[in-house]
């Protein structure tokens, strides 16, 4: 059993990276590993937007995150990255607003940090 932190650096328009991180997270949990945090950084912060308007045949990004949140996963976003990009940090859905220092401390305690970009 290992402890992971995952960071996501690409926006929701990058469907491939989005699906890779979600599948990786589910595979980790299925194998009994622990994920201490998924951290949205750089363009990844847009995943915390609550303004998605997707037709039903699109990849349902908010639903993917909701499904991970339902498994009590710690979903965080970088407050500085979000503020710089104009995201409403009072409405971030299933994501919790956090500082880079909080993530750095979690990463320091983790066995593996996997970046998705």
């Amino acid at each position, binding site marked *: 059993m290992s402890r992971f932190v995952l960071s996501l*650096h690409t926006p929701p328009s990058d469907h491939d990276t989005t699906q890779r991180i979600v599948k990786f997270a589910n595979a980790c949990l299925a194998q009994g590993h622990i994920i201490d945090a998924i951290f949205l950084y*750089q363009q990844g912060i847009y995943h915390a937007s609550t303004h998605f308007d997707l037709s039903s045949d699109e990849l349902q990004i908010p639903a993917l995150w909701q499904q991970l949140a339902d498994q009590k996963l710690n979903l965080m976003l970088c407050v500085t990255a979000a503020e710089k990009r104009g995201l409403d940090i009072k409405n971030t859905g299933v994501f919790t607003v956090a500082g*880079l*220092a909080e993530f*750095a401390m979690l990463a320091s305690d*983790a066995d593996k940090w996997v970046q998705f970009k």
Partner: protein
Amino acid sequence: MINVLVMSQCSPFDDLNIRDALDMTLIFAAVDQNVSWLFSGPAVLALKKHQQPNDIGLKDFFKNIKTLEIYDVENIYVCEKSLLDYGLNKHDLLIEAKALNFSQQQTLIKAQQHVVNL
């Protein structure tokens, strides 16, 4: 204490990548980890002296790069080959950085617990 390496391969004016890498480096230093920063490819230009980003309406973040010395971040590395590619030598650089060949870069990467590309 763990070893963390931040790797930069983007030019200083490509999005916020260099500034995000700087933040990441400073934050790992702030939480008392042994952090290193490696510049390669166009990222070596982030260490070039005498740049005036204000003239094109950008924040002068080269000033912030200089603060690494104040925060005791001493493990700053540059790819020796990339310096040559961009016609730079150690005297053109803003801060003290150690030039590494490919095999030294491999050794550096192997010594890390975490490596992050920004």
